[in-house]
């Protein structure tokens, strides 16, 4: 953003930081038991506060999205880092992506099995390699080279996710990370922890810098080696000088729709504002039931549209507005 534009915005009093995060979009039943809803809401609130404090302390947008996504990865209630859903082999293969709006520098990683915080590995790839995207063994080797925190693969696997994989296998299908619990015929299946979602964060700091970050364990019962939308620049994650976007939902649809890039593209080429652009993509372009996203603009606007039943989400702006919501 040019100094001139910044000055103008400052005069208009429109500048201010803003942050939004999500914990996945999908078919979240309104009657989700309180014991499954409340810990997630509490986590969103707590982690939002961490982001807000960092922004108040003048951290850069890039640092804030990394920090917030690390917290979301460490929280077992969401499908990223610890708490990632399992592949058809019962293993965890995590993916993450980070992008800086002003430089359009970005980093991405897939197929990570031992790195505690995949988002930080994505950032290292962005900053310390000539590449953008590393995957599987090469990514693991680079994480070790960089001295990132590594743990045993079992660290990420929760009992809930073992049960969910079992259910998915019994139903013999790939379960989206957000779909209804699978209903077996004539069987009363307990509400499995099926409301686990990909996580993401977007932020704009006081200087108008934008950044986006997304992290996921992918789909329950996914094929080994499957890559979703999260690590793909322009699909699950995108930031430039117009906006920062993190998307979640049905990965294959989000890839096809290049959802995150298209929000920025309609702002740039059609002249829409942030809210209109995001609403256009989510309501008019993406098929119903597939997509949710969080986005911020350089002027501190924030939007969190979805065309699924719900999306775990939270946002705050410098003027004191704060929201934590699911439906």
């Amino acid at each position, binding site marked *: 953003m040019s100094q001139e534009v910044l000055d103008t915005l400052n005069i208009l009093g429109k500048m201010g930081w803003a942050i939004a995060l999500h914990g996945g979009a999908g078919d979240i039943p309104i009657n989700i038991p309180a014991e499954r809803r409340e810990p997630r809401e509490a986590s969103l609130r707590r982690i939002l506060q961490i982001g807000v404090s960092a922004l108040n302390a003048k951290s850069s947008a890039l640092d804030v999205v990394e920090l917030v996504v690390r917290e979301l990865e460490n929280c077992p209630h969401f499908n990223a880092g610890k708490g990632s859903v399992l592949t058809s082999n019962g293993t965890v293969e995590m993916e993450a992506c980070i992008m800086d709006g002003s430089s359009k520098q970005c980093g991405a990683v897939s197929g990570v099995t031992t790195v505690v915080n995949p988002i930080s590995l994505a950032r290292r790839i962005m900053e310390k*390699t000539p590449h953008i995207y590393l995957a599987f063994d*090469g990514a693991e080797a680079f994480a070790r080279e960089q001295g990132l925190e590594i743990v045993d693969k079992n660290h990420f696997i929760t009992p809930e996710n073992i049960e969910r994989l079992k259910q998915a296998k019994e139903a013999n299908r790939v379960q989206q990370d957000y779909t209804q619990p699978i209903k077996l015929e004539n069987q009363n299946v307990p509400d499995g922890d099926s409301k686990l979602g990909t996580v993401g964060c977007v932020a704009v700091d006081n200087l108008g810098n934008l950044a986006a970050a997304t992290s996921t364990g992918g789909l329950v019962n996914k094929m080994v080696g499957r890559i979703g939308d999260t690590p793909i620049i*322009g*699909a699950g994650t995108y930031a430039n000088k117009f906006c920062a976007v993190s998307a979640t939902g049905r990965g294959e649809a989000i890839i096809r729709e290049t959802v995150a890039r298209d929000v920025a593209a309609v702002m740039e080429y059609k002249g829409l504002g942030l809210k209109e652009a995001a609403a256009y993509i989510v309501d008019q372009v993406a098929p119903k039931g597939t997509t949710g996203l969080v986005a911020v603009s350089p002027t501190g606007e924030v939007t969190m549209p979805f065309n699924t039943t719900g999306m775990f989400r939270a946002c705050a702006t410098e003027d004191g507005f704060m929201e934590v919501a699911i439906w």
Partner: protein
Amino acid sequence: MVGWAIAVHGGAGVDPNLPTDRQEQAKQLLTRCLNLGISALQSSASAIDVVELVVRELETDPIFNSGRGSALTEKGTVEMEASIMDGVGRRCGAVSGITTVKNPVSLARLVMDKSPHSYLAFSGAEDFAQQMGVEREENDYFITEDNKGMLKLAKEANSIVFDYRIPTTGYESCGSGVDTPIHMNGLPISVYAPETVGCVVVDSQGRCAAATSTGGLMNKKTGRIGDSPLIGAGTYACDACGVSCTGEGEAIIRGTLAREVAVVMEYKGLGLQEAVDFVIKERLDEGQAGLIAVSKTGEVAYGFNCVGMFRGCATEDGFMEVGIWE
């Protein structure tokens, strides 16, 4: 009914000192592949079948950097990537980290047609190839003597120009003369292996498709994923157009280059050639790349901002062109 159109490429960023016989070989291969695609189109093959067919041919020939003849990783191995997209329904498939599959583009097609996913990588993709019964080869089949030599040169050059960072300087202006060392991706252009392959087609029913395949960057880190398998970056197709990109992968990813051509047609109302020119000029920042594109109305276009791109194109009305330089 519209007239069909087809374009192929064998990579952007060509060493101005490339020996003439090598230039001739490349042009012959491009011509052969174009003719193969043209015959298929004349037999009413669909766009998606034609792009797969043509890219298979490019992969099988060792001249360009895909399939046999792929560039080597820092460990001297081959890790191939490919993607394919059908403008009809925007279905897509992609693979990365392929070490034994003779034609990665066909594996990408199977991911699209036969798996619940759109992108598989590394051992999971190899397992899927095994299940699907596709033709496989030992890793050695893909490794050519030429590329072993290039890897050695790249490693030597690396210690000088590659500071393990995206070079902030060193992008000498492209095409400014053979005395100026031209670099792409931080490597001297004589060593850099840009020769990713791709094909875009619009068939006579106006259906667009695109496919791209590559061995990636010479001396890349194992596990590196470039733009070729990424939908919206190296490859994209929709109702309006089909696009395949090549060049500095990281710049193409950052610019979501293939999708961008469609975006400016859709949201800015540009025509195909205008869209290609705009994207090459405005969306690459300092990166060097090229792309080929077709539109649903049977137009074909290409563009590049570096010193040469191996490409060829043809349309139903008899136009045909094969070239390397501007």
